[in-house]
């Protein structure tokens, strides 16, 4: 085999290429918006957006891990909703707040384990397994709350979301911590390695002496716990846990994850890409809002942006050209 000299470089580039493109796109967007709407580039606006997205971004970290492991988790939004409800109700019934939080997170862990077992042991299709738990959980929320927002939280609970440390809003700090932690886990610990290999080839992973089932359960627990964390920040931001919270979260998050270059078949992807996806989607929405473009058009643009991004990624991988959209004959280049 002739290995042409620049193999390694090519390898790294093709791995980095897409993220670079996303960054470039983001910069272009900032430039464009900066010209269209100076208020866009104000520190105030940027901090506002970053704070706002920290919750969904935290969930996206978990979703990325799940998808890399070859799974899919539709229940994130519901977990994000149910955890603060549990905490609020517990606290409302005189349970000390610390314990209430522990119970809330425990609930999330249990949900994660259930998802994991349904998918790993009972071999459910992830999408349908988590759809079922999602449906059930949402209903449990209604039963618990009778559909009314829960707002029994202690004084100063809102500081978690509204407070800041060294001038940086706490949610952003939490998000950064989560990103750093999971970037590290995925890249430099064996569990990260196992998660990738489970998504890449479960059979081979199993034969290599790694319990694929455990990894699978693990990732759903991770996803649930991160959703719980997001839910706590969310409820602290609103000082209220609304039973309908997170109804659209799952799809938003998945959109960002896919846009970040994580492969839906598992085994490939990374958290930084996902974060870029989150940033792009949310700063586009923010920009559209500032430009006064209404929600209808936003939906359309979102779809188009996703297509362009993923289309570009596919081109990078398999060297297709836009023109091939219109070419009659298909080649497999």
């Amino acid at each position, binding site marked *: 085999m002739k290995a042409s000299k620049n*193999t*390694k470089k090519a390898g790294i580039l093709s791995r980095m290429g897409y993220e670079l493109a996303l960054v470039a796109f983001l910069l272009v967007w900032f430039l464009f918006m900066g010209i269209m709407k100076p208020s866009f580039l104000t520190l105030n606006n940027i901090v506002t957006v970053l704070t706002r997205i920290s919750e969904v971004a935290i969930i996206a970290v978990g979703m990325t891990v799940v998808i890399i492991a070859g799974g899919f988790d539709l229940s994130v939004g519901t977990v994000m909703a149910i955890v603060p409800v549990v905490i609020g109700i517990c606290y409302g019934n005189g349970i000390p707040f610390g314990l209430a939080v522990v119970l809330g997170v425990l609930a999330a862990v249990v949900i994660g384990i259930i998802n994991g077992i349904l998918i790993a042991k009972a071999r459910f299709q992830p999408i349908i397994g988590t759809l079922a738990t999602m449906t059930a959980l949402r209903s449990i929320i209604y039963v618990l709350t009778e559909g009314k927002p829960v707002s029994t939280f202690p004084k100063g609970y809102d500081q978690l979301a509204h407070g800041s440390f060294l001038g940086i809003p706490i949610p952003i700090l939490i998000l950064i911590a989560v990103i750093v932690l999971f970037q590290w886990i995925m890249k430099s610990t064996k569990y990260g*390695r*196992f998660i990738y*290999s489970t998504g*890449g*080839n479960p059979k*081979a992973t199993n034969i*290599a*002496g790694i319990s694929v089932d455990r990894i699978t359960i693990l990732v759903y627990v991770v996803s649930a716990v991160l959703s719980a964390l997001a839910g706590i920040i969310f409820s602290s931001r609103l000082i209220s846990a609304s039973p309908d919270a997170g109804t659209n979260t799952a799809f938003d998050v998945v959109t960002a994850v896919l846009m970040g270059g994580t492969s839906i078949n598992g085994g490939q992807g990374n958290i930084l890409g996902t974060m870029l996806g989150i940033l792009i989607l949310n700063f586009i929405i923010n920009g559209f809002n500032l430009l006064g473009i209404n929600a209808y058009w936003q939906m359309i643009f979102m779809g188009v942006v996703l297509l362009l991004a993923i289309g570009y990624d596919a081109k990078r991988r398999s060297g297709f050209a836009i023109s091939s959209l219109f070419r009659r004959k298909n080649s497999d280049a």
Partner: protein
Amino acid sequence: MAETLLKLTGITKEFPGVLALNKVQLDIKEAEVLALVGENGAGKSTLIKILTGALGGWSGEILWKGKPLKVNHPWEAQQAGISTIYQELTLCPDITVAENVFLGREPKKHGAIDWAKMNAMTAEVLEKLDVHVAPTEKVGRLTVATQQLIEIARALTMNAQLIIMDEPTSSLSEHEVSTLMRIVKDLKANGISVLYISHKFNEIFEISDRISVLRDGEYIGSVNTEDAKLDDVLVMMVGRTVNIRFKERTNKIGDVIFAVENLTTAGAFEDLSFELHEGEILGVSGLVGAGRTEMARAIFGIDKSDSGAITIGGKKLPMPRSPKEALKLGIGFLPEDRKEEGLVLLMSVQENSTLTALAKNRHNTVIHSKQERSLVEEYVKKLTIKTPSIEQLTRNLSGGNQQKVVIAKWLASESKILIFDEPTRGIDVGAKAEIYDLMNELVAQGYGIIMISSELPEVIGMSDRILVMHEGRSAGIFEKDAVTPEEIMSYATGADRN
């Protein structure tokens, strides 16, 4: 002097970072059997894929009966009259045998698919190959070997003028191979050309008229089979002389390090018992479907077995319930199908090699990339794995080198008891020799190896003792010098019984 049927000139194909083919030429005459040989990664399959339209983005020219042939898609090649048996199985597991055989060419009766006819025609061709499965059986339930035969059946039913066979016998055992040889000769007799790719020279010399050689993506040359000598061909292939004779091992065989007792799984194998000594290679021979793979999978805890026990280091233990347990017990397993079960193709050489090691020690969760690199570099050197870098994705390695990565993975796990299922399947002579040397080295270091193989010469050449299996039962364990190949075959086919 027969007409030239197909002529390839200046075929060049580059993959990211790899020049797979460099101005390659090839020509096949009518009613000719042309053998195409070359090391793993020489570019044989790539050339085939280009020729059949399965691969794009290449340069060069294809002349078919003197006219330029445009192939953008496999069905175009088929319509031109080229049918192909690819190296990888190209069957759809969820549909029936008949459908797979006639996929895309389903016989129709006024508009609707004519199932009766399709099944009948399939039964006919399967008969010719004496494969005994129902045309209505789902392919996914068949053994790898049977699937290979169905691929052959498909190629035959296309009544093409050129049939390409890319390592058709890699998962077949003697019996099926001889059937295939017969069929190829028939084809030739009927004026059909065959492009035959294989790493097995006995086959090549039996059926081919000419031999063309590729090396490192370059066309080296062609020779007529009758006036070609194996060693010359090997030199053309490898660029150096390779010794493919099996070496005598001198290491002493120690005491029992591993034993299996009364291993049984209903429907697969029954009451298997054997011992493995330190420094010993125990060959496992048998016909395809004898259940050797299933036995190995059961020993390694992949499939649940109904009953049985193992003894390791004098301790009698229940069968491992998972590969994880087997790994902890110091067993390693090189599976039959390296792409499906041996490697995570999307991961690099480095990541694949250390997977078992990481899985084994429950301490240090953090990966020390320096240590890891040096470890892998070491194995790459020791096993002479040909790869541009250890970051290269294993997907992009050639068969032999992929197999070496799998072996490296098990050496890294420090398992002393190794089960190799078809370790040289689809691997070129050079790499084969290297793998044999490696196995010799391992046993010399006190490893014990159970080697499942369908290649009789390999079994006899490498093993100290040979376990022959027939329909899931042990037909006996023999000292290697105590049996002849013929005897082994008769035990394997159960001929000895009647």
